[in-house]
């Protein structure tokens, strides 16, 4: 398990470092990036679906959903 976690964290760091040298995008060049569909947050409506997935699956977190509160016991 720890090996897999280590690999995941390392991979995340590698991806971040890979993009650290990206060319800077100026404000006026962000027409596509500013589109609502490009938002990096989950959609407003994902709130409901993420909640039931949190209850119906053992895994949760890192998806904008609930990380606590509510028993989910039904």
């Amino acid at each position: 398990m720890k090996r897999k976690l280590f690999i995941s964290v390392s991979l995340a760091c590698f991806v971040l470092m890979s993009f650290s040298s990206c060319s800077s995008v100026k404000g006026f060049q962000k027409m596509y990036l500013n589109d609502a569909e490009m938002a990096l947050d989950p959609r407003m409506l994902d709130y409901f679906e993420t909640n039931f997935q949190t209850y119906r699956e053992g895994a949760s977190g890192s998806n904008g959903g609930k990380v606590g509160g509510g028993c989910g016991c039904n």
Partner: protein
Amino acid sequence: MSSSDQDEFINGDTTEVLQDSYESLEWKAIDFNLLSSYYQQDGNNAAVTGGIGSEALTDFTQKVSLTVPLNKKLSVKFDGGYDYYSSVSTDNIDNVRSSDSSSDIRAHGNIGFSYQLEKQKNISGRIGTSNEYDYFSINSALFYDYKTEDENTTIQLGFQTFQDRWSVIYPREIKNSSSVPTNKRSSYNASFGLSKVINRKMQLFIQLEGTYMNGLLSTPFHRVYFTENSAVKIEKLPSNRLKIPIGIRFNAYLNDWMLARLHYRYYWDSWGIQANTLSAELPLKINRFFAVYPFLRFHSQQAADYFKPYKEHNLQDEYYTSDYDLSKLNSLSYGLGLSYSPAGGIAKFNMPLNQRKFMFKSIDLKYSHYDRSTGLKADIISVGLGFTF
């Protein structure tokens, strides 16, 4: 021009003064969102009846959120809502069909704020509560965001706590022989996120979280049946759990009318669950304001160390559960969403008593079907309406 204005002009601050004057006159719109959903599921592995029996459940949810800008830097946010559900499995807590346990309402509310410390730094927070028949929860959260000067990189730090209390209910037939060490549950979550613009059409977000829970982490009305003499007890699980998910989100414009929104998560916890989740959305821009997005999500997880099906646990086991949410499973969900948000709004109305206009800004619709390898199936339909005034 006054002397102070002359000084500002000489110091090159005139632009800033004009900008401040303009922004103070700017119309600060209040955002209001109304969200509703209807969810139904069915399966045959209810935890209340020890891993067998109907999981049929329906849930109707409504939520409202209101964001009120108080000035250029500070805004407050209110949100609240309720879930009304009816469940066949919780109806079986007391083995009396159509009893009081067959349905319940969960109500919740939060108040939060967002404050811009400097141009690139923002702090936000929230306190809130939720309540249902047998469960009460208080939560609080604090977040800090930092953007680089070119706004191509953002770092987010967050901390959340949940302090929960059960009103413990046991299955009727084993009520006298059941007990739990505490009725409290605490959860602490810390998160680190980093978003990065890759180029004009791509950006990604990486998030690492850690959640520590302790207290009563089992559900006191979940039954477990043992191999020996059909003995039955309530579920027993460790009093602490550490969860570590790592998520990567990647969004890209593939061409002028098609995008890809991808999300991958690896999850590990101290109960033995490891999971991989991958989801993909393919928004198609019909025009600048209207998008249709088919989506697909796949989830795979290993079972918790303490899970066994109906009548497979031994009485010597230290911990035991037959809750199929903690079993080895794969799930697939898919569906379609629509998003319509014209720049001028869908409709406008004059507000009485002031000069503001009430604008029906956007509408979102989403349908999703969910299949779990244990046999559980679910459908959810959600609607979101956005307004400003």
